[in-house]
């Protein structure tokens, strides 16, 4: 079964058409030089960007995108940022503390405002937010860039566990081969 179907998709005027089928529970990595359109393609799949031409078919019910930059409201705490998600209530948030926060080492940082967190801590909140949506399709835009090796290993394990348990499809962008989740299929621009 196909989760994402891209047919003659053109992101920029001079870019070559993209044809790609991403199957259910598959894991893909987009690779290419800076400015070639990797992030734009991810945004097209997420429905945030309109292509110049071609067709996009996404069959996932719930999509989550972990943005390259954390995109959190700076004056709110990490907890308040996560509580903005429409389906999260306080009880679920308590369960989430048990499930995720201790694992990713954010339990103590949850009540601190975002502006006081480090880049790596913000990125972990960003990734947690994406997982809390419980998506069928997870899009990751260079999430490893601001994480140290220790935290990357934790996040990697967490996402791998999530993919298996929730039968989720993954599309990721990473410049470093050491910062990809499991062994992905590669699409080169």
């Amino acid at each position, binding site marked *: 079964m196909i989760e994402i179907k891209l047919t003659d998709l053109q992101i920029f005027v001079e870019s070559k058409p993209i044809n790609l089928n991403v199957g259910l529970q598959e894991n893909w990595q987009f690779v290419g030089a800076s400015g070639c359109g990797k992030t734009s393609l991810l945004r097209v799949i*997420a429905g945030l960007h309109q292509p110049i031409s071609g067709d996009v078919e996404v069959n996932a019910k719930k999509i989550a*995108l972990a*943005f390259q930059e954390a*995109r959190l*409201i700076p004056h709110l705490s990490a907890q308040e940022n996560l509580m*903005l998600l429409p389906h999260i209530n306080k009880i679920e948030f308590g369960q989430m503390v048990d499930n995720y926060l201790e694992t990713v080492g954010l339990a103590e940082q949850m009540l601190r405002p975002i502006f006081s967190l480090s880049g790596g801590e913000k990125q972990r909140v960003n990734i947690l937010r994406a997982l809390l949506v419980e998506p069928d399709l997870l899009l990751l835009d260079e999430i490893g860039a601001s994480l140290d090796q220790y935290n990357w290993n934790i996040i990697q394990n967490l996402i791998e566990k999530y993919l298996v348990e929730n039968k989720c499809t993954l599309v990721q962008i990473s410049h470093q081969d050491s910062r990809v989740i499991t062994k992905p299929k590669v699409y080169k621009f």
Partner: protein
Amino acid sequence: MKNFLVNKTLWGSTELARDDNQFIYKNLLAKLSGCVVLLSIWWILSLYNHPTLIPSPNLVFWALLDYVFDLNFWLDSLMPSLFHIILGFFSAAFIGVSFGVLAGNIPIVRHMFSPLRVLTTSMPAAVGVVLFITWLGLGSTMVIVMVAVFIAPIFYMALCDGFDTIDYDLNEMLQFYNVSLVNRLKHFILPSLWGALSPAIRLAIANSARLTILAEIFAATSGLGERVDTARTYLQTDKLFALLIVMVLIVVLFDKFASILLARYDVSSKHKRQSF
């Protein structure tokens, strides 16, 4: 161990105080000494000039006391002026915010409004008074309409600037994750606009008071402005000075009230540099 409060300026850092209390006392002392200097200059000038030109602080104090114990002053002058200021301010806020939200979100509307904005912001207030008297005659309506028309652009421009500085990447994220409009307004849009809107509100309050008095001088049949006109006609400079003090007090009180309210709702200021 106590924290040292440091004032950071373009010229470097200077130590202000060892703790909050010392900082507050130092500021209060500086303000009081500013008042004493002003009073001294006024008193010295009054010694060398006729009271119709510069009345002494003593004379003005008694004129002020006369007003305080005069019920007619409260009912016929102070209350109508306060009514004009408040109604003019809120009418301006309603007009300015409505148009500002439209223009901040729809670029073509902003271009359409730009001639009107230029007209209202560059027109001298005295010309406005003459025009509004011609159109609306004398009385309270003219004063309120004039304040509303002249103050609305402050809100309008603040909102346009505010919408320009909104982080649209954050907004995109909130829309992507289906965050409700109420939460977006409460936690993101309003705090983002607050930085531009907050100083505009304080500016609008002070200008509403000033414009109200100006319009009342020319056109009102009641209010502080009407008293100013009478005092000017009979060369009662001591009363003129007393009325000036009343007006300054009104602006200061409104400004203080506004700053307390604004600070209470300024959720985005937590991470800003403390200003001195």
